[in-house]
């Protein structure tokens, strides 16, 4: 009996002395990381989301009819809820990009670096800020009003939606502040930055190009005329000035760091997409030299010698994969790069700025020509190709059809291949090319994405208020900047 009592006592002491709660420690995952590593991940997630053709995440290539689907036609007919596309886009940008960027900034701010100059830390924070502003701008351009001032705060589970225009102007102000902080004499995030490897000069150019585009996005709002003018004119001198400056991320050879186009078109083994007739026909009409870099050819002969041509599948209808042009091999390569801003786009925007009467230097035609040359050169064409193309009266700025909206809108459509989101935004801005929804379409060509359906249950009151504020949570609702 005594022995047993002694044993009991020992057990109790043993149990009381050892700090039981220490068992709960997670010994495999870190509690502290660097801000730089968070930035690297956020940046990659952003590029992936803007580039992937995965039908669960990004279907903008179909909104502007660059591609169409072969068998399963839901997305080509604007069914964005069969797969929760708005939700996935929202989740990636808020949770996988903005949250990590915000945490990155918090950690970098509180880190003591042994760097030679405090300017490096300032540069790091400014770069994170620019990446953040870009991401927010995509959210506003997609949805309109969004949770912003109260977002990214886990203690407020029902963040209010802020007015889209107010948010957008605040973003431009934040961009101005970040531009003011960047010091090109010093580096920034170095190898943690897969876009510019920390080159602050390039970040300045990207920031100014972004500012130019964001300013022009508001150009059709009369009440913002002076704000737009200031924004555009102050941005123009510092924008991307060559194909060497473009904002791109080069993928690697091994998954999961491969080009998302490769993942979804090659590694998946599926045959879901062909080039859409809308884009292919238009480029065929102009004998566009970029076709060989965009599409494969198919044999259209009925007998005898093969007759190779670029043939697009009928947009929105069933298409036999082997009968139509596919995405060109180089775009499907695992290491092909993704882009969020390029030189051609910048020059088109400058052409637009000139047409709108802003003093940004040069003529609209010069900028337009430079843009087309830059685009052809980027994709692999020669200067001769570009010259021949520009000599086509339907391409040449002086003779091409329509207003500047139509001329620039058409060429942006050709140039923004593989960049569905920007292509969609510019189409919404310029209203060209004239695209028609397919017969089985569930709606007009979307002018925005609806809010994720989960917002109805997770943040219902604020969702309802935002829906009313923007004029209804529908894909047909025009956003605040889309005035035409």
């Amino acid at each position, binding site marked *: *009996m005594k022995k047993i009592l002694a*044993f*009991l006592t020992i*057990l109790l002491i043993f*149990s009381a002395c050892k700090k*039981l*709660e220490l*068992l*709960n*420690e*997670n010994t495999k995952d*870190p509690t502290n*990381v*660097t801000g*730089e*590593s*968070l930035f*690297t*991940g956020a940046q990659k*997630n952003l590029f992936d989301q803007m580039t992937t053709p995965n039908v669960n995440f990004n279907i903008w290539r179909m909104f502007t009819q660059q591609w169409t689907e072969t*068998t399963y036609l839901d997305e080509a007919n604007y069914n964005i*809820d*069969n797969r*929760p596309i708005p939700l996935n886009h929202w989740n990636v940008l*808020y949770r996988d990009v903005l*949250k*990590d960027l*915000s945490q990155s900034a918090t950690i970098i701010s509180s880190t003591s670096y042994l760097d030679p100059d405090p300017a490096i830390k300032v540069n790091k924070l400014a770069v994170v800020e620019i990446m953040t502003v870009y991401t927010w701008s995509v959210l506003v351009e997609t949805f309109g009003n969004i*949770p912003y001032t109260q*977002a*990214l*705060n*886990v203690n407020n*589970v029902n*963040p209010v939606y802020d007015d889209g225009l107010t948010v957008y102007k605040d973003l431009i102000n934040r961009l101005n502040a970040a531009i003011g902080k960047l010091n090109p004499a010093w580096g920034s995030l170095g190898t*943690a930055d*897969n876009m510019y490897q920390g080159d602050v000069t390039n970040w300045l150019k990207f920031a100014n190009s972004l500012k130019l585009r964001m300013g022009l996005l508001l150009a059709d709002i009369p009440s913002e005329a002076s704000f737009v003018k200031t924004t555009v004119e102050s941005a123009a001198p510092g924008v991307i000035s060559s194909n060497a400056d473009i904002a791109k991320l080069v993928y*690697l*050879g*091994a*998954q*999961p*760091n*491969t080009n998302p186009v490769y*993942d979804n078109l090659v*590694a*998946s*083994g*599926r045959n879901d997409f062909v080039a859409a007739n809308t884009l292919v026909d238009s480029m065929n009409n102009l004998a566009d030299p970029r076709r060989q870099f965009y599409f494969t050819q198919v044999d259209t002969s009925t007998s005898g010698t093969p007759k190779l041509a670029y043939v697009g599948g009928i947009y929105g*209808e069933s*298409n*036999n*994969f*082997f*009968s139509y042009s596919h995405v060109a091999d180089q775009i499907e390569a695992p290491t092909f790069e993704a882009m969020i801003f390029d030189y051609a786009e910048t020059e088109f925007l400058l052409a637009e700025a000139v047409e709108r009467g802003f003093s940004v230097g040069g003529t609209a035609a010069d900028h337009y020509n430079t843009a087309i040359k830059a685009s052809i050169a980027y994709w692999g064409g020669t200067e001769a190709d570009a010259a021949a193309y520009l000599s086509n009266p339907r391409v040449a700025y002086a003779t091409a059809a329509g207003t500047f909206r139509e001329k620039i809108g058409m060429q942006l459509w050709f140039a923004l291949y593989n960049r569905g989101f920007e292509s969609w935004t510019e189409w919404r801005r310029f209203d060209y090319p004239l695209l028609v929804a397919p017969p089985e379409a569930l709606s007009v060509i979307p002018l925005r994405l609806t809010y994720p359906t989960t*917002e*109805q*249950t*997770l*943040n219902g009151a604020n969702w309802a208020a935002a829906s009313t504020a923007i004029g209804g949570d529908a894909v047909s609702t025009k956003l605040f900047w889309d005035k035409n």
Partner: protein
Amino acid sequence: MRKFTISLFLMLFIGLQVAYAQRSITGKVTSSEDGAGLPGATVLVKGTTVGTITDANGAFTLLVPKDKETLLVSFVGMKTKEIALGTDNVVNVVLELSVQQLEGVVVTALGIPREKKSLGYATQEVQGDNLSTIKTSNFINNLSGKVSGIQVQSNTNMGGSSNIILRGNKSLTGDNQVLFVIDGVPVNNQITNTSSQTQAGVGYDYGNAASDINSDDIANINVLKGAAATALYGSRAAAGVIMITTKKGAGAGDSGYKKGIGVTLSTGVDVGFVDKTTFPTYQQQYGAGYGKYYGPDGDAYFNIIKVNGVNETWVPTTEDASFGAPFDANLMVYQWDAVDPASPNYQKATPWVAAANGPITFFEKPVTWNTTLSIDNTFNKGNYRLAYTNFDQKGLMPNSSLTKNIVSMNGTWNVTDKFTASASGSYSIVKGKGRNSTGYNDNIVTSFRQWMETNVDIKEQWNLYNQTARNLTWNYADPDPATTDYSPIYWDNYYWTRYQNYETDQRNRFFGNVALDYKVTKWLDIYGRMSVDTYYEIQEERRAVGSIATPFGIGSGSDGSLTRSDQQSGYLRRDFTFSEYNYDLMANFNKNLSKSFNLKGILGLNIRRTNFSRLISSTNGGLAVPGLYSLQNSIGPLPLSKELVSKVGVDGIYASVSVGFKNMVYLDATIRRDHSSTLPPNNSVYYYPSVSAGFIFSQLLQEAKWLSFGKLRLNYAQVGSPAQFDQLVDNYNIITPMNSPITSVAGSKKNSDLKPEKTNSLEGGLEMSFLKNRLGFDFALYNTFTTNQILPLVLTTATGYQSKIINAGEIQNKGIELTLKATPCKNKNFAWDIVINWSKNYSKVVSLLDGVNNLQLGAFQGGVTLNAMVGQPYGVLYGSDYVYDANGNKLINPANGKYQITTTSNNIIGNVNPLWTGGMTNSFKYKNWALSFLIDIQKGGSIFSLDMYYGLSSGLYPETAYTNDLGNPVRNPIVWKDPNDHSKGYASTSGGYINEGVLPNGQTNWVRVNASTYSGFGYKVLPNSAFVYDATYVKLREISISYSVPASLLKKVFITGITVTAVASNPWIIYKKIPYTDPESGLSAGNLQGYTTGSLPSTRNFGFNLKFSF
């Protein structure tokens, strides 16, 4: 009979034998039931403390003082008998069953045996024989319908996990599975399925670990239903407990009992046949394709591809749907079997007809062999039992098997009169091979039920695979002979999938304990026990070079199963190690304070340590050397492994007191204090109390002969539940680096202020039996509130997080349970027993966090989510619904005759909780024959079928190919009388169908839906709610007939017993509403229920069993 009675509790009355004027009485105590000796019966000299207990054979010798003339002979569950001593010194006593006794002694929490009549809470027993007659891979499935209040959701996966819930889901997102306890020791019931598997993505169902328990080792099961019954187990038993008592060395009264060594051999075989009502029937009129989309102009049913320079008609092999050309035996077309030179139809056209051998021919007949050999012995100093079981199952799918080898032993040694040592141990090796894939992706049955061509002959697929061992699929991406790469597009040859891309798994497990019991005084004993449950498990998954790409390898999520990239080949392994140690020390006292009062008590200590580790590794980018499945055979650099180590500890101290008054009123109170490692230090200690009372009112009504027994019971308990491992401190994720390291903020925000969950439960019950126990019932009412739930609240990601761990929310479960027992007929040769179990549980989500009224539990393909919504039962399905007008009519789109569908997807379209469940067992005994059958019923509950969602749209089912109201094939095109003036209506030759509903102008719908292409049926034209089915079923669950060879015939041989049993399990689904599948089909165990996709059909199993005792 009462073989689970533990002798040490019967030895409390051994008195001193006083040297006095006395005489020696010898004798034997036997049972009136079977005449067998009763070991451990108490023989007491009336009016003294002089007494003894009987030995293993029921014999006793007692010195009786000369002046005493009466013996009191008692045994638990028997009527105590007074024997007047005459002159004879030999006294044989026959004890009769106590009339007031319902089921005698049952095993309660911590393995403590109690007289059932003294309990103030509901328990229900199932005898081992009722679980082991039918041999299944998971004995849990055999509980369905046998216990009220229990809901067993078995699925059709080979060796699959079974969901077992008692009295409803109490935790919103935590573990709601009952706790399994063997001989007082908890056993792990971990389900290691991936999160992708549970949400119907891709994966295998690896079963639940409790299925390692061998049903042949089970003596009986006692289900502790309410919190009061389980309070001493503390937090982990909040969901209820299944107490398993294993077989011990046979005691008197056991069937097969024989003095000395007993040997039992039981062997059986069982064969399954597909229940055709749980598998699709296919339309036989149309073959491959989605409509007239093919050919050079995109307007034909067939493609034109050159063969040897000549244009030929080809079936669109790329399409996994059957909305193509009408079959026509005179039409010769090139099909998938014309592609490969190995095929006898290479470059030959064949008639365009439906397949002679459809998917059902793919399945094999599952055969299960089960053999158990056991040896037991009971001797003066104790008893032991040693058993070996071999279970060998060949599955329904080709190349699938499940084997178990289990050795178990237990023994008790009475070292001295006061000191007993016992030990038990079980070692098992369970191996699975070729478990069926579950969910949407990479699952052959998904193809069978949703995506296939009705012209594909399964036998031909087999012949070509068998002949070539290559992936000659019916689903070529490009059958053009001009190309050389004949790769599949969506589906591999089914046999390639089964024979090349199979998984294997193995779990080696030991559990056991050693215990010492020391009797300090006759009213106090101290009991110490150390137990261990430990296993190592490996799961290996393969994809052979040449397969279609499918999500494989390591992606995101804690187990790497989400957002995985598509890989065409690869190897993945998961290694698990688990161990749980329990140290228990208990002091038991049991004393009659006076003639009327009995006091029992326990003071105890439990220390538990659980360690779980998981390592997941995979190849990346494919296999370098085909056929070699190893990590070093990866083409790409290995992805980051996923490593998890979790350690959980709980230190508990508990006490219980029971007072009995005149065998009529019993009061119990317990309290337990737990200190848990998973809560923050200031909240990590918590207490929970329980009180229960039983009042045997029949004691007051002794004159009422019709009343055999009557008891009222009432109890209240509070049970706490700690958090899971690692819910307090935030961690970052480490992601595969890209030129530089990558991390990310974890999607779920943890919470350093967590408090324990609390379940408050109130239960009342009435138990009565009549007419000498020929008729009886047990009725229970309960009401349970679980508050302070620890749950990951799903957030809008605008907060930066997917979810955050909070302490909030309340679920109420209230319900009724009823067990009826009747013996309509009983005589010397014949007996008929009926047991009916019925239960109904209402669950209600009372609250979540302020401002939050819905918690999403799971999201599935098709846009359906499972939710806990305030004011609703736990587990409502959300999805799109029809749009109704003010009169409740479904609105139709006048342009195309289709239903209008809500744009919102937060409509309640189903509730996965059954209205009630019930079971009825009828048993008949006639001489040496026994027959029993069980009918199992579930009423209500919803299940969403992704099979119908997609399968109707791809034209597989007869519902898509019928003769319409105009007498034309529904798939014929729409024909107007006047194409330019639709008001004239349809031509008599028109196809299409008319949905029931109204047009927006109020007219009854007359607009036809065009059903000539795949847009005509299924998910493209119907809301989610159209695919929600009532999960009601009535099943003949099992039926068995056995014959025991009479002992008189065996007298001359060395065999003491032979029993032959014929069994059938699930022989007949008498009633169900969901078409083409089993209403019980689901994904796997867990909180995500109410969704079916690509499930195996269920099987009717028939077998027989032979049992020999030596």
